[in-house]
């Protein structure tokens, strides 16, 4: 506990120090060093506390206002792990900015401190304070490239989403905290409070339909900020929901579980469908964040439902799935955002349709993006599979116990999401890295700098959790395994992961054998290099390749009623077309355009009628305050 506090102070110190360094280069170097060293320490502390399930060096007066328990340490593990990689990444990534970055680094530290604060506050005032600090610092970080108009627009949407979310949280906290503002365990008859909680935290977590800021803010922010925001910051919403579900017990707990499960299913499926239609790397990744938040919520909702059924062990397994997916998503999504930053740095193109063939120029970035894509599609050998397997397992086992409806829905939702995510990431990877380059960019080079190192740290984590599921599960959830070692299903899961590890060994062995067979067969044979088969056409052009939107066209066509992409093309009337014709598709932000934009303009109209209230005269404002105070006093009497 003390070490975390000291780290916070260190961050605080550096946040002010960063104002006094004039040179950008040394600023980035010093700060990135400070970030990754201190987050390495934080990582070690949170790992130790999670494994030994006790806290070291506790302070009584701190414990009154701050939590330092399993949940806060688990989320701090996520935070410090991502921060460690992002810290290393930032040093060379930020080289592209020539403007002074002092304010950037200041906000970076404030963001870290406020996230640590949010994860530990036991008091609602403190919580809201840190929550708002997190919102503002991340807003400034998103606005780093404020010169661009699109960034300003995205920043505005993000700002509004933050404000509305905080409002709902204020209302719900006023009910669940005692007079001094401390959170308390309460039991309520009705479950309306949960609606507020879900709305408040949902706007940060970004599940559908509260997701509109995600696909706006992520493309606008620099890649390292997107990595932190998508990897860690939106998880604060998940943390909030978990924390509240521990404290706020309501009569109809089953209903809450159902609500979370359905929100999760809808976000997961719609998120991946919207992602399929996207052509912009970072927007695509942002929609996948929505999908993965959905999967986490599916795990949480299922866990609550199974608990009301009385299946405690399976409920725990689904909960493990949700928690582990939180960690996994943080790892592979940050990895993907970081590699997208590397691509953008090298090519300055964010449209999938114009990229291609980068694999030969940037092999290391290509490898890390490949691992990230496979992990996010939930494929074996990598971490995404393990967490999805836990949720699948819980629902299959619960079905065995005789509970059908929700478990079947969960399984089918996960299956649909898995296959569609696979389609989406094969599209993304192949249109960025495979084939030939669609635009000729001569001077693409990949330097072996901190960008690459940091990505490989996350690749390593993906593999560790994926290939050694037994060890990592046992490590992360040791608290539960030692406390509930009488639950048979819980112990079974460890056995299963052991089998899985051995299966991986077998597959490696088979690969070795067959690779040897292939090598022997090729011993005295000739290997030629030639063109791709093109039906005998002798002048292939890179434009003839199958592009991203053609790849997903059958799927987007099938789901046209949801995705509703617009396509633009001129009519061709000539028999022998001589002009240049262009075809383009534009994915739409469905929820934003159909719900929020009309709502926003209506609100604007309505509020402009009341604009006389804001007259600009200070005396009038003081009068308002007086009236409000008077009203409050009279009301209390």
């Amino acid at each position, binding site marked *: 506990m003390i070490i975390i506090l000291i780290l916070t102070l260190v961050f605080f110190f550096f946040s002010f120090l960063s104002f006094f360094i004039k040179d950008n280069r040394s600023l980035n170097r010093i700060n990135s060093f400070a970030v990754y060293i201190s987050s390495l320490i934080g990582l070690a502390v949170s790992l130790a506390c999670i494994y030994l399930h006790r806290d070291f060096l506790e302070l009584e007066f701190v414990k009154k206002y701050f939590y330092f328990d399993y949940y806060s340490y688990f989320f701090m593990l996520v935070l410090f792990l991502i921060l460690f990689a992002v810290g290393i990444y930032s040093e060379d990534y930020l080289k592209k900015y020539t403007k002074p970055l002092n304010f950037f680094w200041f906000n970076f530290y404030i963001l870290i401190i406020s996230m640590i604060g949010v994860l530990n506050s036991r008091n609602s005032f403190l919580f809201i304070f840190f929550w708002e600090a997190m919102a503002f610092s991340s807003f400034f970080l998103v606005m780093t490239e404020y010169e661009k108009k699109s960034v300003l627009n995205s920043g505005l949407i993000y700002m509004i989403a933050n404000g509305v979310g905080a409002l709902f949280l204020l209302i719900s906290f006023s009910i669940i905290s005692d007079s001094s503002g401390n959170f308390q365990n309460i039991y309520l008859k009705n479950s309306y409070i949960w609606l507020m909680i879900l709305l408040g935290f949902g706007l940060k977590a970004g599940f559908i339909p509260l997701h509109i800021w995600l696909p706006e803010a992520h493309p606008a922010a620099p890649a390292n900020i997107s990595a932190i925001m998508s990897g860690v910051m939106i998880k604060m919403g998940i943390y909030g929901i978990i924390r509240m579900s521990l404290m706020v017990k309501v009569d109809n707990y089953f209903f809450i579980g159902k609500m979370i499960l359905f929100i999760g299913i809808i976000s997961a499926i719609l998120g991946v469908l919207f992602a399929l239609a996207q052509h912009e790397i970072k927007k695509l990744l942002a929609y996948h964040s929505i999908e993965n938040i959905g999967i986490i919520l599916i795990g949480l909702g299922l866990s609550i439902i199974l608990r009301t059924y009385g299946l405690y062990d399976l409920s725990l397994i689904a909960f493990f799935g949700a928690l582990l997916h939180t960690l996994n998503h943080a790892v592979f999504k940050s990895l993907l955002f970081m590699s997208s930053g590397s691509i953008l740095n090298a090519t300055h193109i964010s449209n999938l349709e114009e990229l291609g063939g980068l694999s030969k120029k940037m092999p290391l970035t290509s490898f890390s993006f490949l691992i990230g894509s496979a992990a996010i599609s939930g494929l074996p050998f990598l971490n995404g599979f393990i967490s999805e397997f836990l949720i699948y397992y819980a629902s299959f086992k619960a079905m065995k116990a005789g509970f059908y409806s929700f478990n079947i829905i969960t399984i089918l939702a996960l299956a649909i999401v898995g*296959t569609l995510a696979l389609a989406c990431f094969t599209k993304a990877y192949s249109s960025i890295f495979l084939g030939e380059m669609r635009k000729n960019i001569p001077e693409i080079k990949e330097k072996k700098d901190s960008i690459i190192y940091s990505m490989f740290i996350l690749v390593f984590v993906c593999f560790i959790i994926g290939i050694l599921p037994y060890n990592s599960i046992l490590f992360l959830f040791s608290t539960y395994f030692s406390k509930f070692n009488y639950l048979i299903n819980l112990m079974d899961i460890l056995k299963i992961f052991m089998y899985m590890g051995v299966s991986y060994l077998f597959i490696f062995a088979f690969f070795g054998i067959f690779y040897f067979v292939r090598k022997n*067969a090729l011993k005295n044979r000739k290997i*030629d290099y030639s063109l*791709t088969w093109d039906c005998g056409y002798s002048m292939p052009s890179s434009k003839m*390749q199958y592009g991203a939107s053609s790849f997903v066209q059958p799927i987007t066509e099938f789901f046209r009623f949801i995705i509703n992409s617009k396509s633009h093309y001129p009519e061709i009337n000539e028999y022998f077309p001589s002009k240049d014709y262009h075809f383009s598709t534009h994915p739409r932000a469905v929820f934003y355009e159909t719900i929020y934009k009309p709502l926003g303009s209506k609100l604007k109209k309505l509020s402009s009628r009341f604009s006389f209230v804001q007259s600009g005269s200070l005396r009038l404002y003081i009068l308002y305050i007086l009236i409000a105070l008077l009203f409050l006093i009279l009301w209390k009497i």
Partner: protein
Amino acid sequence: MENIIIFLKIIIILFLAPLFLGIINKVKAFFGGREGQSVFQMYYDLFKLFNKGIVYSKTTTLIFRYSPVIIFSLIFFANLMMPSFGMKGLFSFDGDFIFIIYLLGLIRFLIILSAMDCGSSFEGMGASREAWFSVFGELSFFISIIVLSSITGETSLYSMFSKLNLSLWSTNSAVLALILISLFFVLLVESSRVPFDDPNTHLELTMIHEVMILDNSGVDFGFMIYASSLKMWFFASFIANILLPSSNYSFLYGFFAYLISMFFIAVIIGIIESTIARVRLLKVPQLLLGSFSISLVALVFQVFRG
């Protein structure tokens, strides 16, 4: 005993999977009134391909080079995990089918990427179709497993199949028949057969699986077609396990029941291929949706029966 069985299994998988295709082709030739190619044609093809050099496209990367071998070892492992002749697979644990389905997902991931690696629009088309059609295939497969699991009350492949016996068949015949039909569709779509795809056409624009491996040659091509025959063997053995439950009988009975039902499945595929034309490509999703609905009906029957 178990080690011997695994060894026997390896031999059967590796040596009989190509024969499966041979039987299909023989049936097709019979219906066409031809003598047809030899049943062992696939072995000759494989032998020929394993003795050839390779031509790589200059566009391709390492993914294209190594995915045939990786795909082959993955599908080989998946086959080993499948219980057959009433005996356990290599491993059996709760939820092993999820693991296997996701291994098949990894295979799909690799095959799509290696197709896209060539930078050709033909291969792109095939890859796009594979990605899309497998959504339904996997869903139907999952639903069938849900139904099986709820009929038998078990959550691993071996225990599900070992609980399946004639008395369960007689009480659940409608549901089991429905999922058999839907699984048969899955088999056809996953191994790219008529009516979804015709392995004999050589018009690149309408193919699915064959077009994805258009640029593979030599040993790599050999691994690819071997892998696709193993994939077919995998799905066929899944069906065979339901068709003739053999766990409560002697090993010899199980062994022959398995081989006979595999032969039977190959003949049925042959009959289907020679009597039905392939569906127009744009209609394939509708057909897939139909087969998905069949499995859904089975699920509804099973769940609401009480």
